[in-house]
């Protein structure tokens, strides 16, 4: 039976497979496909008036709240966080989005990487990056850390909390993945203008992405430490932002600039903001919009003296 059907199929193929017609149909098929593709691309040009913002998970909550408030006024704004601050800047540089959300200042490197883009940052507020530890460790005696101790912890040289006056508990370091604004602030605090060394080869070291993931992993890991925006630990009594060189990240210390890891939060546009993007940024800068910042534990422009 199988022999018969194979024979029949072969016959069918022979009967129908005339060379000329085959090449003609291949040609027409490729025509069809390319027509379909260009058709898509053509209609794609139509576009929409939605404003796309993307970048830092620190800025995202404020950006989302503002977008929600403007929805009522008919503005269509989307917020994405893939890739963090650097991801937002690179997407703005390649023209994929309208506004980059950034929790780090633009660097010369960024400007050089996208020479055709006229990056215009607008500061919308500020926040403090804390070195966050668990309450268990803080209660165990870690009441503050010096710059050298922080460096030792993140470089994997200090592996037990008792070395810095805490309980006998191994240290577990969560560092932010490359391109995250939070990580750059920490590096700047520890190394100043110098380059950060390669990550330690310690076994108690893992990488996290966004702020929510960082908080989640901090909460679920004993003896953990990570850099995280202090706004994200409000309402989480099991996490503590440890004072650095004796300065706690209190509102007063952050506003006065005494706390070392304060950073500005930006919305960056290509050229001066215009149209819907301008409306959006203007709203965030307005008194009403600025009220959103303290809600998430950040500082307003006014508090920063801007």
């Amino acid at each position, binding site marked *: *039976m199988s022999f018969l059907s194979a024979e029949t199929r072969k016959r069918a193929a022979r009967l129908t497979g005339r060379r000329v017609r085959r090449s003609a149909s291949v040609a027409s098929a490729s025509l069809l496909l390319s027509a379909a593709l260009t058709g898509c691309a053509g209609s794609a040009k139509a576009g929409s008036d939605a404003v796309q913002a993307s970048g830092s998970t620190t800025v995202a909550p404020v950006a989302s709240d503002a977008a929600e408030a403007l929805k009522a006024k008919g503005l*269509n704004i989307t917020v*994405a966080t893939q890739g963090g601050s650097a991801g937002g800047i690179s997407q703005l540089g390649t*023209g*994929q989005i309208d506004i980059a959300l950034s929790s780090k200042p633009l660097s010369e490197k960024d400007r050089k990487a996208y020479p055709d883009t006229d990056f215009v940052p607008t500061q919308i507020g500020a926040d403090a990056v804390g070195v966050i530890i668990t309450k268990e460790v803080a209660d165990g005696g870690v009441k503050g850390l010096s710059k050298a101790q922080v460096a030792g912890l993140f470089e994997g040289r200090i592996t037990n909390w008792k070395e810095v006056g805490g309980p006998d508990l191994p240290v577990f370091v969560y560092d932010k993945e490359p391109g995250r604004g939070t990580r750059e602030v920490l590096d700047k605090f520890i190394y100043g203008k110098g380059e950060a060394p390669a990550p330690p080869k310690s076994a108690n070291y893992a990488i996290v992405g966004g702020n929510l993931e960082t908080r989640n992993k901090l909460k679920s890991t004993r003896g953990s430490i990570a850099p995280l925006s202090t706004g994200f630990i409000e309402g989480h009594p099991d996490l503590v932002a440890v004072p650095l060189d004796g300065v706690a990240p209190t509102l007063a210390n952050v506003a006065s600039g005494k706390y070392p890891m304060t950073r500005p939060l930006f919305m960056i546009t290509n050229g001066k903001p215009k149209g819907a993007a301008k409306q959006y940024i203007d709203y965030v800068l307005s008194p009403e919009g600025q009220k959103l910042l303290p809600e998430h534990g950040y500082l307003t422009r006014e508090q920063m003296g801007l």
Partner: protein
Amino acid sequence: MGLTLERPTQAPGPAVPRPSPGSGRGSRARWVWGWAYSGILSVLLTLTVLLGYLVTGIASGTVDWTALLTSSTWSPGNLAFGGLAMIYGSAVVCVLALVLAVPVGWAAAVALSEYLPPRLAKPLRLSIELLAAVPSIVYGLIGIMVIRPFVADLGDVPGGDSLLAAGIVLAVMIMPTIVAVSVDALAAVPGRYREAAYSLGLTRREVVRSAVLPQARTGMRAGVLLGLARALGEAIAVFMVIGRADDRLPESLGDVFSFLVRPGQTLTTKLAGPEPMLAGTSGPYFAALCGLGVILLALVAVATVWGTRGSTGRAVRAPRARRSSAWLRTPKDRLTTFARLGALLLPGALLVGMLGILLARGGAALNPVFWFTASEGAAGGGIRDQILGTLLLLATTALIALPLGYGAGVVIGTRASAKASRVLETLTVAVGGTPTILLGLAGYVLFCTTMGWGRSWLAGAVVLVPVVIPVVALTTAGRIRGMPAEITEAALALGLTGSQYVRSVVIPYTWPATLTGLLLGLARAAGETAPLIFTATVFFGAPALPTGIVNAPVQALPTHIFTLSQDSGAPEAIAQAWGSALVLVLITAGLLSLAVLLRNRFEGARRWTT
């Protein structure tokens, strides 16, 4: 004649309506070939685009392949691109998954097929096929909520992000695939082999070992390779539990074991991280990432193609003569029975446990309000927009993939010579096995960056198309092969041209199979996360239905779960994540049940998962 008797009885195809005079049936139907070849071209185009993306990426900067394959230092800042630690991570995770899943999977398959009465085996088999189709993001969610703490306790390590956690997640994920494929291989062994063996007075264990397994071995191995391909290509579920720590390579044998409970990195998790976005679209950094992609693609392609090849099982090796001792025959037989049925408990417990967790934690999904209200803030309200977004993506994908996949299936099934058809089929299988993270990255570079679409639902749908096309094409081609020869002979005897034959005979006969394939493909596409996070979805603010085509992102269920699961410390985010997971599973199950209905209605019972 004996051969004829062995042909499986064919359920009659749907009735072909009698041609009414003047209905145009006499026309030449030239469109058929244009359409069919577009289908096969779309498969080739996918491969070309994917390889083109990787090759141009590699060509845009110099890749130091020796360093990529042998150095373990990955430091873009210092232009050091060593991938050995990631290759090691991928290997360890896959080996762990296989070590955990294969023995249990095989034993469970043997128990299902050889020990259980059909009345019990049939529903169990169906549930295992359902398990095989559960979206990987759901496994990832279970990984982060259940397996991560479990590993933390087991290894007495903080956190629990580790290679072992990733291996367990993958084992749980691929076990149903291994069981489903192995059961098919066992079921294909003709009953007369068993009868002959039993009549010799062998115990059940001996029958299985000496009569059944030698016949089914190739198919069972194919199941393992398919599972391996799935494990190698999985990005998101692993991403969530592995810790993503670079440059972790053990230096001594003791390290190998202590590193199992420590964080690591695999090829896919590196590609799913932020680095493809930071690397731009040219230069040594981008080239090195593309190099990792090539390594990954090559590994997965080898496993997939090898696995599918093996299942055709041409030469069955003659079973080795085995002299088993008569010592303790009966106790041994009892023990094996016990072990095999016990192995079956594990997938069963998995199914019950997963359903239990989903129902207990995701109870919100059972409330219709959850389905029909929009979300508020990050994790409040319902998930109407995410459901609509997923449905929009699925509908668009279906519209594009159905004609293309159908066409490709017709070409593979009817036109090509045996050799060409094998080549085409292998290519189609390779497209189907492509790690979806690579599809997402290729789509990101092609649509979002080069063509300037930004995030776009259409880009997301197009990226999902290659997931669906192979399933449609292979199911269609399989059905065409199973067509009774008489039908073809009658059509040819009536003098139908090739295109008329396809239009009036092949299409009416195969469409149920094609639709089944489409539903199966869509069930898979529904749960895909990796391609969408780069091309189509945003964290917040996308309207329920997009207003344009470019720069018009949507929200989708899998990416919603992915975002929420990262914040599993917040109770309302968790509730929302589990609820969304249950909704996603229900949607997948709905698509699968439709497929089963179609299959049972129009075709003989055939396997429909891979």
